[in-house]
């Protein structure tokens, strides 16, 4: 082996995230899958994927047509018939670019710059489109939907000018800021394309230590993990939407992204979904479907804690990880003592379990496992209330290893809400007529945009691995704490002289 061979070999090893045994789809014949013999720098392919049902324009352009004609005539007179000057239009985005100009504005091109209305307030007014304001529900706000649609359409990080436009802080995720480092290692993979930041996470059972015999061979439990290339999984969709069109889209997108998708075992069988990226969801009443499963998944998910069911799965599939899906306020230490090592903690779609928001619940779950001394052995996946890219690093900072996405995926596929979309059982979502290629690409675009935003956040911190972000609450700042620290000594209004 020459020196250059050695160097190449070490670089390959450094960047290769997956061993062949850990590849997401051992059964797939996809030749583009990475292998240990080739360098594989993980990336998600994006491609502009337009909406299949028209998305409301952001603004309504209301033009007083008589006023406009009057203005044109006046200007034609003023500029002595110079059409070029009289017909020159204020909009630089093409809203008035039709031959008839402002008489038939192209609302879909309006970006709300307001230049037209500033110049001609008596003729044109720009209004926010009420149709857009009606999208979503009380938690999934219209602006969230707008963001997700952009991400799913283009696969790009939303970038805008002129600073922040929102509230100072707020409830839930908005009351949390992530940290940055003034002087950090050059950990940038996004726009600057330099060093690699890993977004891979390990899901599985990790013993606290290894035991070796006198020959140096490992004896006793060894880590059993699945490495996903992004710290987000695809959760089972709402009951009303678990169709034979939607589930294969989720499955194929998960396979291509190299993550996992959770699917009820009945659907796995009925739709013939296979592959190591498919995680069958098993409930005690659906245990009998295991008999019809002809392959061995990398992970099962048990819907709710059931000792007997858990033991059955472990016995029948000793090499498969068993994850237990429980509400986020469950006592995890008790279950960990009974041998559970992978948890999927669930809150409702608005991020609540009981009357607590997920941030507090994740912090409590993480801390309880830390106190019991088993946090390093356990994997925590969480879902509920994670609707924007920024929620992913925040949830991980609070203590999750990975998150599972639900409503955000539906929004990317242009699902429409009917009323409040609170939980999997009650949510009423309607999808357009789905096309597999379109749907898969939309989800890939969303995943790429979210991953790139995760890299932005980690790059700002100077972190190279999302694994290291888990539970690093020193990497975030809580509004409540900072306000207390800074403003506690101030009085309330009216307390002054």
């Amino acid at each position: 082996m020459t020196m250059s061979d050695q160097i190449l070999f070490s670089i390959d090893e450094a960047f290769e995230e997956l061993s062949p045994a850990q590849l997401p789809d051992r059964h797939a014949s996809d030749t583009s899958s990475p292998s240990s013999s080739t360098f594989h720098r993980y990336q998600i392919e994006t491609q502009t994927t337009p909406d299949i049902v028209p998305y409301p324009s952001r603004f309504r352009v209301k033009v007083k047509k008589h006023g406009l004609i009057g203005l044109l005539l006046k200007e034609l007179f003023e500029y002595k018939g110079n059409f070029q000057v009289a017909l020159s239009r204020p909009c630089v985005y093409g809203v008035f670019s039709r031959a008839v100009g402002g008489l038939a504005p192209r609302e879909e091109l309006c970006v709300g710059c307001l230049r037209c209305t500033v110049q001609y307030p008596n003729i044109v007014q720009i209004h926010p489109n009420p149709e857009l304001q009606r999208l979503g529900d009380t938690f999934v706000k219209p602006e969230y939907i707008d963001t997700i649609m952009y991400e799913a359409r283009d696969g790009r990080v939303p970038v805008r000018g002129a600073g922040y436009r929102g509230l100072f802080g707020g409830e839930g995720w908005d009351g949390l800021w992530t940290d940055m480092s003034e002087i950090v290692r050059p950990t940038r993979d996004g726009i600057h394309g330099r060093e690699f930041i890993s977004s891979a996470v390990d899901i599985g059972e990790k013993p606290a230590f290894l035991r070796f015999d006198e020959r140096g061979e490992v004896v006793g439990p060894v880590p059993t993990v699945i490495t996903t290339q992004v710290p987000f999984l695809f959760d089972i969709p709402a009951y009303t939407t678990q169709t034979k069109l939607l589930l294969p889209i989720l499955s194929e997108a998960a396979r291509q992204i190299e993550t996992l998708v959770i699917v009820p075992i009945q659907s796995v069988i009925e739709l013939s979904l296979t592959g190591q990226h498919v995680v069958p969801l098993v409930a005690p009443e659906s245990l009998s479907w295991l008999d019809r499963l002809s392959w061995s998944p990398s992970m099962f998910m048990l819907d709710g804690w059931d000792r007997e069911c858990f033991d059955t799965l472990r016995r029948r599939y000793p090499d498969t990880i068993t994850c237990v899906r429980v509400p986020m306020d469950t006592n995890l230490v008790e279950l960990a003592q009974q041998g559970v090592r992978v948890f999927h903690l669930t809150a409702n779609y608005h991020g609540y379990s009981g009357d607590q928001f997920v941030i507090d619940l994740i912090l409590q779950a993480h801390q309880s496992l830390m106190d019991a001394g088993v946090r390093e052995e356990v994997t925590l996946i969480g879902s509920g209330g994670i609707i924007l890219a920024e929620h992913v690093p925040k949830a991980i900072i609070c203590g999750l290893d990975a998150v599972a996405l639900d409503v955000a995926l539906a929004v990317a596929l242009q699902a429409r809400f009917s009323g409040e979309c609170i939980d999997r059982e009650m949510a009423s979502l309607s999808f357009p007529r789905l096309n597999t290629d379109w749907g898969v690409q939309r989800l890939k675009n969303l995943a790429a945009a979210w991953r790139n935003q995760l890299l932005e956040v980690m790059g700002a911190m100077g972190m190279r691995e999302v694994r290291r972000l888990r539970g690093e609450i020193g990497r975030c700042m809580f509004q409540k704490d900072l306000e207390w620290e800074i403003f506690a000594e101030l009085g309330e209004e009216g307390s002054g002289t």
Partner: protein
Amino acid sequence: MRHNGKTAETLIIAKHQEALHRGFLTWPGLAYDRPPAMGDARWTADLILATWIQAETGRPPDNGLEYQVGCSGGGFDALTFKFLPGEQWIPEQEAIDTSISLNRRPYDRKIEIPVPWYGAGMSFGSISEQIMQARAIAARQWGTFTCTGEGGYPESLVPYREHVITQVATGMFGVREETILWAPIIEFKYAQGAKPGLGGHLLGDKTTASVAKMRESVPWVSLFSPFPFHSVYSVEDHKKHIDWVKTINPNALVSVKVSTPTDVDMVAVGSYYAGAHIIQVDGGYGGTGAAPEIAKKNIAMPIELAIPKVHRFLVQEGIRGEVVLMASGGIRTADDIAKIIALGADGCVLGTTELVALGCTRCSNCERGRGCPFGLTTTDPHLSQLVDPNWGAERIGRLYASFQMQLRDILCRLGLRSVQELRGRMDLLNYRGEQGGHHGAGAIH
């Protein structure tokens, strides 16, 4: 076709300029109420229109427009002053000093500015040359400063060089020996609030031939100022940077612009020991250029929380008296200026506010296509002609006059004769956080 000897292009620009100027006057008069699609939680339609009025008249509005706070539910918008009863106010005939010094060290050049603010760094490329000139003219008229940002030093700014800060950032665009020599103040930009830890980024669409030439690059490619300075990994490295520019220009003061991480107080102390005269802390909610939305909203803390933290730590370290602390990132009004000084800053740095005075509607499309349709954040040769530098300078100057008047009024009601007396007087403030925060609920204003 010519009309009165003018080309069609000249006529088109004149036509739109005139219509825009008319609009800047008409809308704040509320003849059509507020534009329905204008404003957001931080910059409400009222604040934008009120800024237009101040840029026109040099006074705050008297027609009911809210010109002091936005509706963001926290920070500046939840802070109020504990004004004294009327009989304890400073008598009208007494002068109230609004000046601050930009060098509190016992050595090096003394620079004093008559108002506790100067203009923020906005690069050529992110804004037009006309806007840079307007800001420089206003800075000279007011005896304060503007800043080049990191995009080079256009020739047209040279006549105003005594009032222009040269910014040095990681891309080193436009950093040459003469631009260091010209500068009374040199600003090292380590990070910026809108995209902390992410560096600068000028999108390809805005890298026109003139911008590329200024930055010694090629047109139509995205230009990055990568984060961080690879030559700086310690306070000692930081000091080397400062020694380097001081060797070239010993007369210059040095400012250090940093963002607001959780340890911003430690960073400030490090900068002091490295020899900085001015520490500019840039909060996350400001910024004028394009930035990822995730960064603006989520990374690093707002300036209202960072400044008291830094101020207190500098006091504890016994060095507060030797360093000038300037705040930036989301300061919109005269009230915000007074509040941030009460929270511990010496003064502040204005960016977006100046652009709003020139007609910005905060539509957030700065990065899109040809850039700002109002001719502000653009280098498009046609759009940038919408702003005449002298017109712009007058508007910025009148906004400054209005801010100074309001600042004096606030000081008068607090019984203070100088803005310097206000620094760190948190005891003169009340705070109510969002939904009441920890101090109970109530309307903001």
